[in-house]
């Protein structure tokens, strides 16, 4: 039993009871809900850096904590997107059984968008902030060593190079066989999760398309409105008694234009990115599920192999047990993460859709 949580606490995973106790522990952390939180992370203050080779943006990452794992109570460092990407990869490597939150897209989708435009940078900053906050909230991931370094190191690049040179420790990575083993039977719950994710990301994709279409139609409507208002003004110029009311109508239409513009902007900046984020989340979850399947497959194959060979009893059981442990751990982690994810997602969407409703309400009130 050489499996242990990264924070050093040993975990007994040989019995199902321990999985549920793990679950309980995780849920307990959830209920604390920030009142006794001991780690706060923020991403802000984007700055442009112009160097000979390239131009890029860095963000300030501020940490406040009372945790023993950190030497100081406060840290402030500068990180660029590359660094976040590196962190995510490291987390995936070191915590393969956990769901790692998604990063905003690396490359800009439409070539038209300016990488350095205020809107783009702000959208990205928000997403990066969310990314770190999610990790902070995670009872396991937040204690990850790489995360710690990310938050504290003055020179992250030096650490990165160091990490690459070392061989991966046994406890740090689970080896996967690509496509070697076939899965016998997937536990129902994971199959259900898989199906759910499929449909979920499809529906989100559809909503994304609808929202984009609405924004497009709204903009076209806006174009016509912009021509409509001034005609009333022209008419007002012709009239004597009616000129005031006509000007009034023209002004109101102008207000409508402004309000509509704001609505479309808000939708683009707040609503769409969250949709995309969850689509990315679904993708990474699907990957985790695949990994889980493979681990289970390996386990089953090894079990079979043991059943066939009647000698070698000492060696294999350890191997098999290890696999079994991994699978169980995997399952437990996944389930725990799923629970938390569902909750978070529900809240996120609630906020999101309410926000959309709110914005529309505001628009109409104007």
């Amino acid at each position, binding site marked *: 039993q050489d499996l242990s949580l990264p924070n050093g606490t040993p975990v007994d995973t040989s019995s199902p009871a321990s999985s549920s106790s793990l679950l309980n522990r995780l849920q307990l952390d959830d209920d604390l809900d920030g009142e006794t939180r001991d780690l706060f992370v923020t991403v802000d203050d984007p700055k442009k850096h112009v160097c000979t080779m390239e131009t890029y943006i860095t963000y300030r990452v501020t940490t406040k904590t009372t945790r023993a794992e950190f030497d100081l109570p406060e840290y402030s460092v500068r990180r660029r997107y590359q660094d976040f990407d590196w962190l995510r990869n490291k987390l995936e490597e070191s915590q393969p059984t956990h769901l790692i939150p998604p990063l905003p897209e690396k490359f800009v989708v439409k070539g038209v968008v300016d990488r350095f435009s205020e809107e783009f940078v702000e959208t990205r900053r928000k997403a990066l902030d969310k990314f770190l906050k999610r990790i902070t909230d995670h009872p396991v991931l937040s204690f990850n060593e790489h995360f710690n370094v990310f938050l504290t190191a003055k020179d992250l690049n030096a650490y990165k190079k160091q990490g690459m040179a070392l061989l991966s420790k046994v406890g740090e990575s689970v080896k996967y066989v690509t496509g070697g083993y076939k899965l016998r039977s997937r536990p129902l719950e994971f199959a259900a999760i898989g199906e759910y994710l499929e449909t979920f990301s499809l*529906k989100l994709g559809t909503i994304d398309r609808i929202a984009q279409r609405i924004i497009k139609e709204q903009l076209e409507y806006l174009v016509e409105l912009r021509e409509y208002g001034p*005609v009333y003004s022209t008419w007002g110029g012709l009239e004597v008694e*009616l000129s005031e009311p006509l000007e009034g109508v023209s002004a*109101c239409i102008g207000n409508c234009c402004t309000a509509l513009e704001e609505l479309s902007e808000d939708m683009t900046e707040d609503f769409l990115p969250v949709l995309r984020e969850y689509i990315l989340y679904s993708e990474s979850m699907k990957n985790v599920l695949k990994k889980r399947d493979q681990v289970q497959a390996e386990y089953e194959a090894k079990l079979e192999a043991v059943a066939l060979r009647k000698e070698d009893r000492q060696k294999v059981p350890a191997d098999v047990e290890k696999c079994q442990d991994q699978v169980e751990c995997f399952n437990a982690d996944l389930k725990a993460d799923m629970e938390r994810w569902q909750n978070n997602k529900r809240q996120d969407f609630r906020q999101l859709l*309410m926000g959309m*409703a709110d914005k529309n309400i505001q628009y109409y009130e104007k």
Partner: protein
Amino acid sequence: MEDCLAKKMEITVSEAEKRTGRNAMNIQETYTAYLIETRAVESQSEGQCAPVDSLWRRYSEFELLRNYLLVTYPHIVVPPLPEKRADFVWHKLSADNMDPDFVERRRIGLENFLLRVASHPVLCQDKIFYSFLTQEGGWKEMVNETGFQLKADSRLKALNATFRVKNPDKRFTELKHYSDELQSVISHLLRVRARVADRLYGVYKVHGNYGRVFSEWSAIEKEMGDGLQSAGHHMDVYAASIDDILEEEEHYADQLKEYLFYAEALRAVCRKHELMQYDLEMAAQDLTSKKQQCEELATGTVRTFSLKGMTSKLFGQESPEQREAKIKVLEEQIQEGEEQLKSKNLEGRDFVKSAWADIERFKEQKNHDLKEALISYAVMQISMCKKGIQVWTNAKECFSKM
């Protein structure tokens, strides 16, 4: 105003019916007939209902009536008819004359036309108008017997022909200019409004897709399912609401259209005045030249060059008897001319006076009507926004329960 017909009689165009019949060229055609109902208003009786008279008329008869009024009352801004063919349509509206919505809007327009004529202090007293409302058979013949078509000045039909008037009345020139501008601005407005309506329709309808997706999504969710499902329902309501909203807006568009056509009627009055002025100037000019001719013959001096003068110089002068005869003819013509000029002047002054009175009346009516139209448009917009607020508030509630 107390004598106006509208006060004495209730007039409605209550129904429209599709008919088939043979037209003047004996070809079978389909047309729509409208039922005009009239009822005398008893001023002092309560609870006593006078009997309703009714007859059917088709659009072409309305046109005939209006043409008659235009010719007979050239100084009046004659109320316009609703459009002959559907114009300024946006994609959902049909441009078909037989379309029930179009027919319905036309019915309202025709009723409006009759009410306008009936409440006009001058027009309401016209006998032909009265028989249009009350006499089913033989009305067409009656109209044609008035011979109004002969009175119609064909020159007025050439819309853009210019008459060079030496002393134009500034007020009329300005008014004509105004009516041109008004026509142009209203038709621009109507065109853009149609495009705006089209786009707005698109925005609302796409939201209907949300309804479907939310429904599908809710099927796979546990806690979020109900919230999503009911929110989806609200999205459907939202998408459907645009139909009623835009239908109401059509009424506003119709009100604007009426004044678009009114602008044309206004312009017609100005043109008539222009024409009268032109005739007057021509007559005056003619008179002056005749007088001059007369003088020349009498005194023997040739002041102006004329071919006759030259030929008589070259080929010998005329005899005194011939000259006397000519002078006499001219003097008669001059007398006639002077009388004609006098009556034309009088006509002109009367025209200007009565036209201007009607124009003032029209201006007031226009300001009043358009103000009301704008107010009702604003009210429509507010109501649309209120509905929007309600739908999104409901949706928000659904979301908050997720």
